[in-house]
């Protein structure tokens, strides 16, 4: 369907273009007047009236077709008394049988009936799709052609359409944000209708295991997210302990001491560090750093977990070094030269100038850079999914196993997803917390940096 509808639409827009062009040419020939716009604008006008309705039909079909068919199938399905059905599984089975007759062996008669119904519905839908897309394209072109005349300013109209398309393109970003907020809030709302918000925010027990069958011997799940927040915070602290001094000192060295040549080689190398995919850091943490941390812990007499907070935090620190160093580098470079020269002029040496003059002057910007790095560290997923644990421990010992917000989101969604189960929905509540925290850190950091920039401009 995908391929043929593209072909159909292409043929449609080509013929509508030709149609529009010949129409205006005929008008010009018969009236012998000069048209207000050139021929190709009239043709483009007809084309856009052919293409846009076609696209609307295409996308609405793509979105709604399957769901409508599914509902029709389920409505007319002959349920056998006493048998338990799961709608999703049933539909998957019907679809399998419909797509491949080999699967029909050993299936019950209801399913085979439903499959043939599915097939015929699919065929009807396909035929009606092609018919309606042809009709809508013809209608659109006819409407546009009727509007064409010598006086019609097609060029202005086309310009207007282009502008609308551009506005649509730039609103995609806003729509994305709305989509994020909508989906997070909607699913979180469903979560909080099952789990109290106070339990989520203040309780310290996180055992998101809900009994799958009724009467199963398992504890009620409890959703206190405090240990998760604490784990995230612990790993973030470890990461910042690595990244803050190394990143800041590197930035100072590169901007104040290093020669042009060193700067030119080291900066791209640090950018490599920023460009490495996070799953690679995860592999590094899991395969190289975690065993090292474990044996180091043993050598000083601490029993380290193989998925310790320390290993994940150290590697995450390495990951955010380039953020801190490049942002701080920018900030330090934008400290006015006059401050440096003034300090050197009254006899301070370079280290004193940096420590007593430049760093205090650049402090707001550096704080902004750190906040951005923290927001990165909190939102980072793959390192912790691979190298940190999944059990929620409330501890401040970096050798122990802790878990983070992002890990719990992945764990909740990686297996079977059931959107009436608080375990699956908890991912969205955690996602909402993550989104709010990273967004506010980011807004705060950008505001600080902006204020700082304005001060020296």
């Amino acid at each position, binding site marked *: 369907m995908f391929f043929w509808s593209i072909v159909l639409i292409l043929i449609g827009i080509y013929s509508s273009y030709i149609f529009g062009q010949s129409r205006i040419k005929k008008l010009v020939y018969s009236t012998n007047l000069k048209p207000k716009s050139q021929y190709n604008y009239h043709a483009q006008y007809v084309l856009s009236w052919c293409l846009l309705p076609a696209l609307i039909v295409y996308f609405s079909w793509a979105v709604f077709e399957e769901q409508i068919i599914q509902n029709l199938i389920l409505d007319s399905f002959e349920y056998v008394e006493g048998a338990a059905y799961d709608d999703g599984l049933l539909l998957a089975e019907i679809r399998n049988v419909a797509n491949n007759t080999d699967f029909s062996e050993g299936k019950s008669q209801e399913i085979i009936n439903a499959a043939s119904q599915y097939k015929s519905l699919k065929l009807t839908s396909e035929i009606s799709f092609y018919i309606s897309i042809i009709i809508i394209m013809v209608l659109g072109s006819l409407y546009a052609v009727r509007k064409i005349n010598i006086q019609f300013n097609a060029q202005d109209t086309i310009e207007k359409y282009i502008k609308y398309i551009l506005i649509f393109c730039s609103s995609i970003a806003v729509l994305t944000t709305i989509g994020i907020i909508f989906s997070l809030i909607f699913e979180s709302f469903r979560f909080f209708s099952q789990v109290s918000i106070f339990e989520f925010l203040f309780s310290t027990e996180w055992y998101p295991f809900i009994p799958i069958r009724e009467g199963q011997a398992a504890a009620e799940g409890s959703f206190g997210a405090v240990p998760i927040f604490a784990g995230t915070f612990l790993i973030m602290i470890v990461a910042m302990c690595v990244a803050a001094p190394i990143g800041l000192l590197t930035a100072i060295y590169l901007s104040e001491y290093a020669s042009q040549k060193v700067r030119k080689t080291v900066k791209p190398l640090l950018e490599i560090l920023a460009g490495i995919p996070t799953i690679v850091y995860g592999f590094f943490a899991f395969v190289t750093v975690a065993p090292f941390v474990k044996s180091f812990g043993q050598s000083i007499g601490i029993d380290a977990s193989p998925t310790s907070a320390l290993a994940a935090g150290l590697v995450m620190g390495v990951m955010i070094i380039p953020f801190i160093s490049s942002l701080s580098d920018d900030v330090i470079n934008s400290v006015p030269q006059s401050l440096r020269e003034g300090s050197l002029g009254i006899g301070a040496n370079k280290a004193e100038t940096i420590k007593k003059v430049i760093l205090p002057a650049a402090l707001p910007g550096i704080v902004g850079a750190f906040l951005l790095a923290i927001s990165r560290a909190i939102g980072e997923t793959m390192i912790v999914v691979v190298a940190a644990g999944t059990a929620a421990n409330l501890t401040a010992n970096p050798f122990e196993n802790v878990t983070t917000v992002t890990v719990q989101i992945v764990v909740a969604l*990686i297996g079977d997803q059931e959107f009436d189960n608080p375990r699956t929905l908890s991912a969205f509540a955690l996602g909402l917390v993550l989104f709010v925290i990273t967004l506010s850190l980011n807004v705060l950091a950008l505001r600080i940096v902006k204020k700082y920039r304005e001060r020296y401009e």
Partner: protein
Amino acid sequence: MNNTVTQERIIALRKKRSAQDLRFKYYGFIAMCLALAVLVFLLYSIFSRGFTAFQKTTILLEINYDQEVLKLTPDSTEKEIEKGKFFKVKKNALNNVFENLSKSDAKFIKKLFSTNIDNEIKNYFLNNPSVLNTKQKLWVTAHSNVDQMLKGNASRDVPEDRRKLNDIQLSFIDQLVQENRIQKEFNNFFFTRADSRHPEIAGIAGSFMGSLLTLFVVFILSFPIAIGASVYLEEFAPKNKLTELIEVNISNLAAVPSIVFGLLGLGVLLNVFGFPRSTPLVGGTVLALMTLPTIIIACRASLKAVPPSIKEGALAIGATKSQAVFHHVVPLALPGTLTGTIIGLAQALGETAPLIMIGMVAFIPNIPTGITEPSASLPVQIFLWVESAERGFQEKSAAAIMIILLFLFMMNALAVYLRNRFEKKW
């Protein structure tokens, strides 16, 4: 008298201060070296683990393509050959690896070979049907445990019950090595096969194809939309609250953690719009939304860099606004936009978390051919292999990382090349 004391104090103070200065400089130098050393160590630890995955262990097996056993005739069609009794031929061959084997030993022998060797024996026959009723010597793939042992990734000094291979199997391997019937060759499976439960026949072809298809979707969606959005914001948008909102929105979207985009894909694209799960279509859409800010920022910067005189010149000779912008300004801004797009695509190539959310972690043992088919992607494949308990997958994941790093390197090099080649200083 007093004067010299003061002078000495000044000299001492100056010495202390310059020592401090020097120390501070060295701190910075050490920090920089530390960062670079970690980079080198990271790359070393991946490369040293990964390069062995490009070789696989094969064992020489003598196979008797007996007409009677196979239940085939010289003029069997390909379909009949597909159903031939190759497992029986394999069984006979395994029983004859060594002379005078007891029944229990034969069981151990079987575990030295990959489960895929039936197919290898069959494929050889499909390519050379004339070997019917002859004996052929074939190099067939060894089991991952044998492979890991010979590559030195698994130690043979641990007690027998903690090893994957028992003492009898080890003695078999030693005998095979002595008789030169075991060798390492280039691992073509790694590049031609999709994922598998068995490390020795698992490859990256499926996930690589999945990544390519996903990137294709990302490009198709994000490139035109990003150009449209940046052209609007730079050239058409009035300076009002709405425009400001869009701008703030784009810069904030760039800082949203990738996993949240995954939740968006799950909550909206899969659950509301009913996109097919686990496919490059939905993965690409999510990643396109994620890379959009990167490309828009790059595109706007290069639109800004085009001097206004070009647009004004076009307007002066009677072009309309959109003609001036699309015929004159946008083509000049294209190299910068392309550079930004490639960097955005490189970001999307390495992204894992959002793809996990929309179900691209399913086990997919075949190579996808379209954007609506379930598929894996390269980083997710690495994740699955890292998480796997089988030791043989560890070198695979390191090797897959080497491939992905190679591609990232090439994409970034292309971006730098484009920037240097086409960027104009006005």
